[in-house]
């Protein structure tokens, strides 16, 4: 596992974690048919926290964070996001979705729209922001992810790393209070991984609440204030990055770390 190196010092001045609860998951269970994917998940995320979720393939990491914006439905327990409980009430779901941004492994940009249109679509149609204002916001965020000059191109014309940065900008245009990342760098070539991670670090520096499924342990060490290890649909261990990597408690975590760190 190559660990990307972050040359510059990370500015932690805005990274304080507040007492305010952003996400609360209580005794949450989920089944796919007979298969019990998520078992008794309990997790509280405070505003400003940056959480990295790790675990072997099939352990339910994606399923868990997809439950937070209701891309997947849970069958028992409670999920409360920003004070709104996720139930089958469509109003609540829409409210949560417009507060929570999500970045996918395969970017999922809209190929028939330009980069700019990708970024303005939801603000215009969901937030009802005037087009001009939405475009200004979009350009602001595209500048932030360092690709303002690609605004009029189509996603297919961009490299993978650029596409993923557009996807981040697209989410940010909705001014979300929470960002979910599902393996944002695992479909990318090594040299592109860094540009995407840099963007994510900047986001962390600004105090965004982030939940990030990733195998980039360097990133976890640099910005996370908590690492969660999942296996077989359960949270097996959680700790601050320093102790998680240097002093793992459970056997499963040790095994996983030895595999992923590769020595």
């Amino acid at each position, binding site marked *: 596992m190559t660990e990307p190196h972050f040359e510059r010092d990370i500015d932690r001045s805005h990274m304080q974690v507040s007492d305010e609860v952003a996400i609360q998951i209580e005794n949450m269970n989920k089944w796919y048919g007979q298969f019990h994917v998520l078992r008794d998940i309990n997790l509280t995320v405070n505003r400003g926290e940056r959480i990295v979720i790790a675990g072997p393939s099939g352990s339910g990491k994606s399923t868990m964070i997809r439950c937070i914006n209701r*891309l997947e439905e849970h069958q028992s327990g409670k999920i409360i996001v920003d004070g709104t409980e996720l139930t089958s009430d469509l109003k609540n779901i829409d409210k949560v*979705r417009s507060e929570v941004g999500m970045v*996918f492994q395969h970017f*999922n940009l809209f190929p*028939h729209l330009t980069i700019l249109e990708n970024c303005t679509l939801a603000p215009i149609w969901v937030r009802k922001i005037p087009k001009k204002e939405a475009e200004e916001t979009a350009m602001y965020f595209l500048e932030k992810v360092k690709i303002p000059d690609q605004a009029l191109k*189509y996603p297919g014309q961009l490299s993978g790393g650029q596409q993923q940065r557009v996807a981040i900008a697209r989410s940010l245009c*909705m001014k979300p209070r929470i960002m979910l990342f599902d393996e944002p760098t695992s479909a990318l070539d090594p040299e592109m991984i860094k540009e995407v991670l840099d963007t994510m670090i900047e986001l962390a520096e600004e105090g965004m609440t982030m939940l990030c499924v990733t195998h980039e342990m360097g990133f976890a060490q640099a910005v996370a204030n908590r690492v969660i290890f999942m296996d077989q649909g359960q949270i097996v261990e959680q700790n601050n990055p320093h102790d998680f990597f240097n002093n793992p408690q459970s056997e499963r975590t040790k095994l996983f770390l030895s595999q992923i760190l590769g020595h």
Partner: protein
Amino acid sequence: MSTSQTAAFVRKDMLPPKDPPTSQAGLVKWLRENLFASWLNTVLTLASLFVIYLLVTHFYPWFRHSVWNANSIAECRTAIAATWGEGATGACWAMLRERWHQFIFGFYPPELYWRPIAVFLGLLLAVAPVLFTQLPRQMLLFSLTYPLLAIWLLWGGSAWPVIMIAAGFGIGYLALRILGDISAILAVVVAIVAPVLFWLFAVGPLDEVLTKVIPLAIEPVASDRFGGFLLAITIGAGGIALSLPLGIILALGRQSNMFLIKSFSVMFIEFIRGVPLITLLFVASLLLNYFLPPGTNFDIILRVMILVTMFAAAYIAEVIRGGLAALPRGQYEAADALGLDYWKAQRLIILPQALKISIPGIVSTFIGMFKDTTLVTFVGLFDPLKGIPDFIRADFNWKGIYWEPFVFVGAIFFILNFSMSRYAMYLERKLKRDHR
């Protein structure tokens, strides 16, 4: 100095580009690659040339012997025999000179021909902004009002019922706008129910009053006077315009999670696709009369148009379903994650992409449907391919004329359908260029 195997090499002067050898360029190359690439290829080329030769030698004289000036098929035959000798055959286009208007307009009153002509020109104008997005968007306003204008001009009569239909749509639109912010479902229900109630109960009395006050009427033309391409294009254009939205709704219905909507869509699609169009046309002409309250005069062209629309919509729904299935799940998820609701996600993200994939299939369906409009001959309407020619053959002067109507009508169908197919290719290329 000795040359070792690992000698370094540096090119001093770059080679200028040269023309390829003649056997590799131009006509010779093309012929070699495309017609005589292998012995099998050569045999096929020669066989094809022979078939082309046979076809041309058979048909060319028929066209060459064409007669344009005659008053009956007998005169045509005499003229051909006089010029080309006994036993020569030839096309008797003189029939077209006398009867072309029936192929185009059917039995529409000749003094009113300007009306279908205006409607046809209007059709081009209404369709243009839909087909070519470069045109100013304001033209779409005309496209929206065009269908009702066309109905009024074609069938004539009082303008009030048509205005009432428009008013019904207006009421529905207002309901959507006003109630849309309160509750989407309520808005949709009201937007459907209110206009229907308006049409059922308010139009009759209002029409009477308004006609008395301001009689806005032009001479009516009954449906049985329609025929030829006027009939085919009316049914075809109406069917195309209506079957695309219906097809989209059916395709979405078939994908829906709601059991009733899904089952209804599946049954509708499978039933319609499983039944021959002619059966449906007979339903239109005979069976519907049993279900409708006695005394209702439900226009036969409208009935046929509705069933042709349903027929095409079932096919289009399947074509679009293929397009929907081809989209990666990630597109739905990204739309959901951004907070777009179902309809917005469909309209802005899913359908534009699914329809783009489905263009070839949709256009094939349209072309098939347009050609199928000739089947209305079986319910007693005068289609251009059989109805009109049979009528002309009933005239003693043209009794026995056979190929000419087929050639003429076939040529017009070909031109119209070929344009559709070309447009579809243009659209595909354009969208590909856009999305890369």
